[in-house]
Every structure is written in structure tokens, then in C-alpha cells.
């Protein structure tokens, strides 16, 4: 690693991006768990009388709940700067994009927001996850 001029800020957005991606993934995870449970218990918060490509609200509720839990677990792997965290993070975010899309009719606004957060997570992990992972140890 090159020696940096000590008078400058040490700014490495790459390290920040990994922590940020983990935070975003856990954020999506929490919302998925909340809305997944609501979907399973058939909450009135969802748009009624909509058609899904396949399955029904209960199916997608379960899938939201499962993806949410997986995402929260994987977020810790990302914060720990592990290799599996990076790839499972990309996988979990990509899978969630699909689930958001399928469950979209029930909660349009939320679906759109979380879809793009997944994009951010994938970008961060793929662009910055591969390098500089050792320096995450002394990241502050």
C-alpha cells in the first residue's frame, strides 16, 4: 500500500461502501421481516384485490420473511468483510429484487424503494468488495 501524505484526510470510499452496503442490506432485511409477517397475517395495509403473477399474499409474505432474515444474517458477513458475505450479499440482494418485483402489486411504493436499495447494495459489493478487505480491520 502506498504511503499517503499525512496532511490529507485518509478517505477511502471503498471501505465505506462495504459498510454502507451491509447497512442497506440489513435495512431492507428489517423492512422485509416486518412486511413479511404482515403479509402472512393478511394485514389490511396491503392493496386488496390485486393479482399476482404466481402465488398469493401469503406466499409472498413467507418469501419476504425468509429473504429478510437471510439478509440480516448476511449483513454481518459483509461487515466482517468476508468473501462469503460479499457473494451471498449479491445473491440475497438479487433474489430480493425478484421478490420485490413479484410482491410489487401489494405494496407499490415500498417495492420500488427497496428494489433500488438492492441495486445500491449490489453495486457497492461488486465494485468495492474485492479489494482492500484487510484494511477493514482498522476501519473506523
Amino acid at each position, binding site marked *: *500500500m502506498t*504511503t*499517503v501524505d*499525512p*496532511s*490529507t*484526510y*485518509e*478517505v477511502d*470510499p471503498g*471501505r*465505506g*461502501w462495504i*459498510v*454502507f452496503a451491509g*447497512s*442497506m442490506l440489513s*435495512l431492507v432485511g*428489517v*423492512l422485509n421481516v*416486518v*412486511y413479511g409477517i*404482515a403479509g402472512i397475517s393478511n*394485514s*389490511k*395495509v396491503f392493496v386488496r384485490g390485486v393479482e399476482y403473477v404466481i402465488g398469493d399474499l401469503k406466499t409472498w409474505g413467507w418469501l419476504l420473511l425468509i429473504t429478510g432474515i437471510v439478509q440480516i444474517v448476511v449483513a454481518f458477513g459483509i461487515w466482517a468483510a468476508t468473501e462469503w458475505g460479499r457473494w451471498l450479499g449479491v445473491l440475497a440482494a438479487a433474489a430480493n429484487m425478484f421478490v420485490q418485483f413479484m410482491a410489487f402489486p401489494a405494496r407499490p*411504493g*415500498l417495492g*420500488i*424503494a427497496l428494489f433500488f*436499495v438492492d441495486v*445500491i447494495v449490489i453495486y457497492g459489493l461488486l465494485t468495492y468488495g474485492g479489494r482492500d478487505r484487510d*484494511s477493514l480491520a482498522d*476501519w*473506523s
Partner: protein
Amino acid sequence: MSTTEPARAPARRSAPGDVGYQGEGWVLFAGTMLGVLCVLNLVDGIAAVSNSNFFVGQAEFVFSDLKTWGWVLIVVGVIQGVTSIGVFLRWGGIRWVGVAIAGLNSIAQLIFMPAYPLWGLALFTLDVLVMYGLIAYGGPRR
């Protein structure tokens, strides 16, 4: 990265275009956005607690009701105001308080969305920007 602690150099005025300059800008931006969020959440929260008509009538939330979420917004707004000041004054550790409160607010905004559609999305976006600025650039000067 040099292992020796650099002699505490006097804070250098960074030139525009420096990476350091950019990081500084992001932190100030995050602080400013926290201030904006504070004001907007306070207005929203007070309106919700007093059951104002400008919210969607009979909105259903994933849990709890309009009044509860109004109080949540007020509390979050106050914390955001204090955090915003802290970010400007560079209190130690304030960065993680900012990340936490922005994260909480992003969840609250999405849950609040049935009462005030689209608005929730806008504030959610601001929260994400705040979290990025503070996480990526909010570290202590080295």
C-alpha cells in the same frame, strides 16, 4: 498506510478537487440533510399527532396508528436536529448516532407512507444519502 502515527499536522485547507475536500463536503451535506429532515419530520409529526386532515384518511399502517407514528416522527426529528448540530461540530462518535437515526427514520418513513404517499419515498432517499455520507466519509481525520 504508514504505521507510524503522523505528527499531528495542522489541518490543511484542502484544495477543491482533493479527495479530502470531497469527503468534507459529504459530511457537511449529511449534516445539512439531517437538519432538513429534522424540520420536515417535526412538521409531519405534529400534524399527525393532531390528526390533521392533510393525511390520507383511514390510512392503514403495518402496525399501530397515525398518532403513534406522529410521536415517533417527532422524537426522531428532535434527535436528528441534535445530531445535525453534532455533525457540524464534529462530536466524537456522532457519526454512528447519525447513521442509526437515519436508518430508523428510513424505516419509519416507509411505514408512514400510507398516510403520506411519495413523501415517504423522498425522505427515505435523503436518509440513504445521509447514511452514505456518514459511513463513507465521516471517519475521524487521520
